[in-house]
């Protein structure tokens, strides 16, 4: 089955420190990978995606993600965390179902940046 896994339910980091939110994937073929962020009582917002090309993808709000094919990972990173980065982060992968292509989301990682 094609899926993504987020092994950490919760990540805490001090403001100003680098942050990493982990994601691993399991797909057949080339993966299309995404990160979304959800602030309290809001819908998800797109952060970045990897389709092909450079393994380091840059996205919104200073976030970036590193695609690692050998480790089947797509970790989200930021060099210096802000308190305002505190939110729920979702990794997603495109899956094919019949003639359609859909997104499958991970279970989410709650990031808390401590002042």
């Amino acid at each position, binding site marked *: 089955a094609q899926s993504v896994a987020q092994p950490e339910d919760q990540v805490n980091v001090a403001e100003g420190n680098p942050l990493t939110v982990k994601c691993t994937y399991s797909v057949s073929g080339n993966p299309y990978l995404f990160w979304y962020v959800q602030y309290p*009582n809001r819908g998800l917002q797109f952060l970045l995606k990897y389709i092909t090309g450079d393994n380091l993808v840059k996205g919104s709000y200073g976030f970036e993600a590193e695609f690692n094919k050998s480790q089947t990972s797509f970790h989200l990173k930021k060099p210096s965390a802000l308190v305002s980065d505190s939110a729920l982060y979702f990794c997603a992968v495109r899956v094919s179902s019949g003639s359609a292509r859909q997104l499958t*989301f991970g279970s*989410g990682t709650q990031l808390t940046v401590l002042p």
Partner: protein
Amino acid sequence: NAGVTQTPKFRILKIGQSMTLQCTQDMNHNYMYWYRQDPGMGLKLIYYSVGAGITDKGEVPNGYNVSRSTTEDFPLRLELAAPSQTSVYFCASSRRQSSYEQYFGPGTRLTVT
């Protein structure tokens, strides 16, 4: 642009009641989706549509129905509400299926008691 709007924001239903969750987008997107979000479970796809008049089931369609009579609107119908349908429901849209940058509405929090 308002983006994706959903109504209502909150609703409490009794078991067996029915209701329609409304979703409208003003971005002229062909693709629209309904998800439910349960704590610690991520998002599960209920139904999706690739254009007006075309809908298909997602991962968890049982207990729900949809229609897509216009490009803008994609209502989700709950018939005979059950406690298992207590969840937060999100509508989303995207311009193209392959791009997969989906735009989400603010959600509807539904409680069935």
